[in-house]
């Protein structure tokens, strides 16, 4: 780390210096450039995945003549509207190695970005409630260890030691134990977007906000550029990274995607003293919870399970989530719920994402993150940047093909419910 990085980037010395001089030396984290007429690569979507893609294009591939086009403000989409959980506890070939790769990127992210994304490896405990579920979790834990990640199978006493506040006497779904993934945890979602944005900008990428793409120009089966609310911009390669709006943007290129948009709600209570140290998931009740660094209990459950672009949920799902919360964790009834929100999810038929080229030359899609896009942020950006730069899929994302639904080859059936829209 050179002297320049100490004085211009973030460091203890810098914080001390600014603290002593009235914090007058801090500057905006990124420029506000006007769009240039042409770029090598245009990324549509300035959310977590789009900004991560720009960062890795610049830092890993030296491609900096790049624009990120965002119709609203950076990080104002799903990355600013999720429950911040980071984990790599998969057991599905394809997704397993992808999230393992992503978690390793998380572990070096703050150093890579010189930015505090508040990545907190507080550990995730997935509770199980039957013998069969214990066997399944034991198998999952073994798979996680086999792929180089971590897992500990806790028995009931082990869970009781870590999570004494759960209702262990409940008769409907008694707690048999839990699968403890210590390297899992949370990160501060806004800071993740800002850290990637600052890094991409400092390497020369143009982050262009308030710039909505209104058309994609295609000639002879190849992209030429985009039409936007700030004029036409040419590019040979265009990446669509607009979770929740993927179908709408793809339609501008005449494409239909294997996506239905659904709402996933989340909830947060008033700020409390630290009481929940881990991320906890309820294996029988579809409920998950962690405590934010501000003290609010952040939790959620299942999708609303019907198509929606409303960015808000309906009460039956809220009721279901709160019932599960009260069954598992009666103390939560003392907390006042401050707010709830809904994010628009790109639900794919098999519950897994797509990172692939399309049949149009120079057009690439990164979509279908369903309910789990946050933990993928670095991995998604890293592998999508690789695809955009080299035209070859990154080895850990090689199975995230767009044609898997047509061919049936390599379906990544996330919940083992079948590859059908209403099941995910």
């Amino acid at each position, binding site marked *: 780390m050179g002297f320049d990085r100490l004085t211009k980037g973030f460091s203890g010395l810098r914080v001390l210096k600014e603290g002593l001089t009235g914090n007058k030396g801090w500057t905006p984290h990124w420029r506000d450039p006007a769009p240039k007429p042409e770029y090598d690569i245009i990324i549509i979507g300035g959310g977590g995945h789009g900004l991560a893609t720009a960062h890795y294009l610049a830092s890993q591939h030296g491609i900096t003549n790049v624009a990120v086009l965002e119709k609203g403000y950076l990080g104002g989409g799903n990355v600013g509207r999720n429950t911040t959980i980071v984990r790599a506890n998969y057991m599905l070939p394809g997704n397993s190695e992808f999230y393992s790769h992503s978690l390793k990127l998380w572990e070096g992210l703050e150093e890579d970005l010189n930015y505090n994304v508040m990545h907190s490896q507080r550990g995730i405990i997935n509770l199980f409630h039957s013998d069969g579920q214990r066997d399944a979790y034991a198998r999952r834990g073994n798979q996680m260890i086999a792929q180089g990640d971590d897992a500990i199978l806790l028995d009931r006493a082990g869970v009781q030691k870590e999570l004494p506040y759960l209702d262990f006497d409940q008769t409907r779904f008694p707690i048999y134990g839990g699968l403890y993934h210590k390297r899992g945890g949370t990160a501060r979602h806004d800071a993740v977007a800002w850290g990637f944005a600052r890094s991409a900008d400092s390497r020369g990428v143009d982050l262009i906000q308030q710039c909505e793409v209104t058309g994609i120009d295609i000639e002879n089966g190849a992209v030429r550029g985009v039409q936007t609310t700030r004029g036409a911009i040419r590019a040979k390669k265009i990446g669509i990274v607009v979770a929740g709006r993927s*179908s709408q943007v793809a*339609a501008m290129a005449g494409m239909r995607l294997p996506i239905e948009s659904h709402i996933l709600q989340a909830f947060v209570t008033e700020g409390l003293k630290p009481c929940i140290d881990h991320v906890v998931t309820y294996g029988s009740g579809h409920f998950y919870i962690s405590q934010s660094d501000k003290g609010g209990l952040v939790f959620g459950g299942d999708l609303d399970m019907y*198509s929606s*672009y*409303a960015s808000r949920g*309906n009460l*039956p799902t809220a009721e279901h989530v709160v019932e599960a919360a009260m069954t598992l964790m009666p103390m939560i009834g003392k907390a006042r719920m401050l707010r709830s929100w809904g994010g628009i999810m790109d639900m794919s*038929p098999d519950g897994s994402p797509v990172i692939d080229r399309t049949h149009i030359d120079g057009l690439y899609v990164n979509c279908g993150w369903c309910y789990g896009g946050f933990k993928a942020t670095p991995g998604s950006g890293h592998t999508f940047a690789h695809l955009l730069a080299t035209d070859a899929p990154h080895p850990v994302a090689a199975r995230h093909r767009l044609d898997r639904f*047509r061919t049936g080859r390599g379906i990544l059936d996330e919940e083992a419910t079948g590859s059908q829209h*209403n099941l995910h």
Partner: protein
Amino acid sequence: MRLPCPICGERDRREFYYQGAAVALNRPAPDADAAEWEDYVHLRDNQPGDLDELWSHDAGCGAWLVVTRNTVTHAVSGAKLVSEAAR
């Protein structure tokens, strides 16, 4: 959200099972090619606004319905029995 079942009247969303866009009613011919089948099974228009959907009134009369619902406002503008839906 409440859905107007043509047989039972307006009922709570929780009485219904959701099957997705009503494209299921446009089943291709058995000898249709792979692209048509992919289109039917997996690909969707998925644009915000009015959408024809299949809902089953599971906890009511058990009928399958085509419900026209706005995916932005959740406002329902129509519901008819699948058996009566001219498609």
